[in-house]
């Protein structure tokens, strides 16, 4: 039987030397292994189905009647928009139920906080994990797009890092709300009133000039608009330097600011 559970007494523990946030990220990665098969095949199936139905099916109609959009095939126009929209959806999903669950249901955050880890490690580790997930999602999506022949420029590879930044910019504000919420009722509203409208109106499916003037301004203020813009420019190889620099700046600033707000929310909720 176990006579010596503690053979070492007060001797210092051997450690690997990983920073706290990296340990948290690795815990997410370890946990993800349980569901990666279904998660990966969903990331693959979604673009295949959408591009086939909307891009090829609907696209040929649009191309035939309107001669494409702004000079490009509808499929080429749509695919980058869908990619950015997918990043939004998955990033938000990862920042809602899993976050409130780790506070209230599994209480995993509390378990982490009983160890040397602190709330900043939790936030940073989580957001780095989001970035890793978005790299996987966007890489698979790009692969499907390449198979449909819609990646028109090698710059398209830069969509992976852009998606990582955009994912953090989408997830961090939502997580800082989710960690403070006492139930999951707000999440349906987030989906209904934020994610779905953004997905539909952030020039994902049609160009900005199709929107009435008032709505154009609103659309330009939303984060997904900039994500779509940048992703599309890179995939098509049609960079508008000033506009795209502004897109990137918007996403970087949002990611940075909301990371800070996330850190404050986690601390407020978990250190009482």
């Amino acid at each position, binding site marked *: 039987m176990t006579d010596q559970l503690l053979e070492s007494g007060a001797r210092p*523990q051997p450690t690997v030397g990983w920073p706290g946030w990296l340990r948290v990220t690795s815990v997410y990665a370890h946990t993800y292994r349980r569901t990666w098969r279904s998660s990966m095949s969903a990331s693959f199936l979604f673009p295949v189905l959408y591009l086939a139905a909307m891009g090829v099916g609907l696209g040929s109609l649009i191309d035939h009647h309107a001669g494409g959009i702004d000079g490009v095939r509808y499929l080429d126009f749509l695919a980058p928009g869908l990619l950015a929209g997918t990043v939004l959806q998955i990033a938000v999903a990862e920042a809602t139920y899993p976050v409130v669950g780790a506070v209230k249901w599994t209480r995993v955050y509390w378990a982490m906080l009983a160890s040397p880890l602190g709330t900043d490690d939790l936030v940073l580790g989580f957001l780095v994990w989001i970035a890793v997930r978005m790299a996987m999602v966007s890489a698979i999506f790009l692969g499907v797009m390449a198979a449909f022949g819609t990646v028109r420029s090698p710059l398209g590879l830069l969509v992976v890092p852009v998606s990582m930044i955009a994912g953090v910019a989408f997830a961090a504000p939502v997580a800082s709300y989710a960690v403070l919420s006492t139930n999951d009722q707000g999440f349906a509203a987030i989906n209904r009133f934020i994610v779905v409208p953004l997905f539909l109106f952030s020039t994902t499916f049609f160009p900005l000039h199709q929107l009435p003037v008032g709505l154009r301004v609103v659309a330009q203020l939303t984060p997904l608009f900039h994500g779509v813009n940048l992703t599309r420019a890179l995939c098509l190889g049609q960079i508008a330097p000033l506009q795209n620099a502004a897109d990137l700046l918007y996403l970087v600033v949002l990611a940075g600011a909301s990371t800070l707000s996330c850190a404050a929310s986690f601390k407020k909720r978990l250190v009482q």
Partner: protein
Amino acid sequence: MVAQGLEKRFGDFTAVAGIDFSISRGESFGFLGPNGAGKTSTMRMVACMSPHTGGQLSVLGMDPRTSGSTIRSRIGLVPQQDSLDDELTVEDNLYLYGRYFDLPKRLIRERAVRLLEFAQLTERAKDKVEPLSGGMKRRLTIARSLISEPELLILDEPTTGLDPQARHLLWDRLYRLKSQGVTLVITTHYMDEAEQLCDRLVVMDKGRIVAEGSPRALIEQHSTREVVELRFGLDQQHQGATAIADLAERIEVLPDRVLLYVHDGDAAVAEVHRRGLLPESSLVRRSTLEDVFLRLTGRSLVD
């Protein structure tokens, strides 16, 4: 570990209202108290998870405000509410917890084998946590808290929900840890547990410490050597009690029985009979910590 005037407020509400205690290395120290007394709030402060709002606290000779992470790397916590990942296996729960502490994979796997045996969960190692019984989860939580081989182990109601076998098993394991020099801090509602495990304990009520000492000393101080429990017929407890009030140092009348706190129980029972009273039943027992507890914190529910 030393606390002076330790206080915890949540907004306007004071959960811990200035308590003093000091616990030395290798000691096993208990916190007793009714629901809402502030035990968990105290444990969370001592575990450096919740900042104190007043007074002084030092744990392992360090200040939780500045060295929380270092202190936490050397203590183990068994929280009142389990915080296991239900979707993962028993083994993975141990492994990931070890990773929180940055322990090397090989070391964790080695320790996990021993700890699973300790918790008698070896056969369930590859099963998910979700279908495990409450007691098994509790044992896993306790095993998990030992993965970092802590010097100080904080247990917040460790045996609530365990069956008697599991409780005795755990007491045995805790006793072994103690003999290996681990400091134990335990909260509990079970008086027998406190008597078994604690060298010293404090009784808390409404955020304050109302008594302190070894289990024996507390009984001597706050109760008599023996207690006689007499049952008179229904609704006759009061009549019975008035006739024998002078026999005891203290007498307590409950709806279903009368308690006489006396030095010599058999003598008291004999005297009761000599006075011609015929209780339906009488029982003489030694005073326990439970009598002390009820005396100090009252019989009514606080919340």
